[in-house]
């Protein structure tokens, strides 16, 4: 108090986000060290990059104008294949993820089942679609079936985890009330759990449809069918104008799917 009365004006500084001075400086310093190390050990061939600029310009020039015509049949085929793959893998993936998701909800499943299902989810989520696709192509041969298995497996990880989290977040009192009526386990799921999680899960299902379409454009790179295969072929043959056309078609479809799913989600809730 004495300070204040003595000094004519009091200094004020915005209090820092992290209170402890040591931690604050430590974090800053650690970050700086990391950045120097990261840049230091990253081998960037600036000569090659500089060379890349005119190359990139040529590359971009090759994109214009996009050529929809000369590969049109291949594009239509690829897109159609991607769409079928997307639809069936989303349906099958969600169907499979429901039991896994139920098993991975802590408030539903006994411990051993819980750990087992969580392990499935962790494995499915850790690997990018493309890694799974490599193995699927090895097992099932080239073509959309490998893509279908890949996307279904990836859907399990995504959808199962969110379902499990949603079930864990549900209102336990409502669930208890239905249990108290003497309902069986499946009846309990149907009356207490399903109404609480369904609206969000429909939204997420549509979102996953959207993701699966995007991913179907990628799994083709390793031979699992779909528009990705067409795209890789275009790149390999240096037909950049066709590649540009394919990318534009992908963007257009993704936008269409996104708007539709947004609309449907609003309608559901």
């Amino acid at each position: 108090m004495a300070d204040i009365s003595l000094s004519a004006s009091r200094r004020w500084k915005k209090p820092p986000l992290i209170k402890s001075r040591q931690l604050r400086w430590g974090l800053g310093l650690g970050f700086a060290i990391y950045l120097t190390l990261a840049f230091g050990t990253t081998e960037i061939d600036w000569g090659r990059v500089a060379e890349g600029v005119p190359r990139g310009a040529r590359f971009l020039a090759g994109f214009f104008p996009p050529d929809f015509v000369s590969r049109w049949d291949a594009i239509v085929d690829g897109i159609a294949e991607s769409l079928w793959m997307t639809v069936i893998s989303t349906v099958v993936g969600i169907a499979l993820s429901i039991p896994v998701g139920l098993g991975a909800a802590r408030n539903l499943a006994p411990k051993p089942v819980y750990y087992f299902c969580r392990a499935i989810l962790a494995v499915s989520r850790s690997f990018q679609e493309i890694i799974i696709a490599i193995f699927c192509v090895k097992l099932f041969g080239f073509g959309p079936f490998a893509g279908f298995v890949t996307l279904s497996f990836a859907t399990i990880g995504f959808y199962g985890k969110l379902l499990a989290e949603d079930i864990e977040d549900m209102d336990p009192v409502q669930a208890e009330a239905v249990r108290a009526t003497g309902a069986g386990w499946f009846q309990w799921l149907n009356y207490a759990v399903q109404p609480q999680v369904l609206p969000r899960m429909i939204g997420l299902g549509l979102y996953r449809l959207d993701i699966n379409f995007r991913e179907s454009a990628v799994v083709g790179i390793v031979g699992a069918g779909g528009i990705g295969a067409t795209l890789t072929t275009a790149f390999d043959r240096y037909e950049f104008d066709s590649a540009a056309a394919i990318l534009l078609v992908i963007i257009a479809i993704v936008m269409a799917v996104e708007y539709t799913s947004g609309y449907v989600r609003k309608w559901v809730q």
Partner: protein
Amino acid sequence: MPVSERAGTKVWQRRERGKQLSIWACYLVGTAIFVYCWNLVSEKTIWMFVWDAPTQAGDLATRMVPPDWAYIDKLWKAIWDTLNIATLGTIMAIVMAVPVAFCAARNTTPSRTVLRPIALFIIVSSRSINSLIWALMLVTILGPGVFAGIIAIALRSIGFCAKLLYEAIEEIDESQVEAVRATGASGPQVLAYGVVPQIMPAFAGISVFRWDINIRESTVLGLVGAGGIGLQLNASINNLAWTQVSLILLVIIATVVLSEWVSARIRHAII
């Protein structure tokens, strides 16, 4: 109304007849689409391979154990590269995403007719094209290596970060902004005092969340030559060195689980 009178007693059905019928119709159409798609895919499938798959899988599994633990010595550099691709890519993406997000948000955009559509187009194209395709193109332009990976991750993440960020900006409490504007603050001051404090938690959360996703994505960029552990994976698969492959897969799981844990901790600390 689902309640109707029939022979003097009130009858209750879950839905009205028309609504129930339309729901059944939706189910029917859905099933038909599914069956149709299934047929098309099945036509392009060589079922012999599919039936053979379980034996193949068993065969592969026996060849993959035990993992070649000694190979880990050659992986440290690749893991480090993978982390760098994800982290540096995320940082670059965030730096670029912030202006894009402010241009795309309805309430902060400087120009609705010109800048906002451009910003939205940037967001959509960045989000629609997978980082692997970005990498494919960048490797052609910049040559193979970590740098192409960083740029690919950055380009891919701009859309994601900018989209979530501009949604957060659009959801802010306008009355707070108004209050700051009422003090006579200039445009940038309004942003700094009225908008930024409100979106800071969302911003931090989005960055960490994207970093977590990017770790996952950077593990595969090497498949098209853009550096990181994917490069080793590709080489081992091509050499049919399955014991190395299984080790790499284990390393990937460990990295991803660890990064997920870190990101969950950080997000928890922020919120």
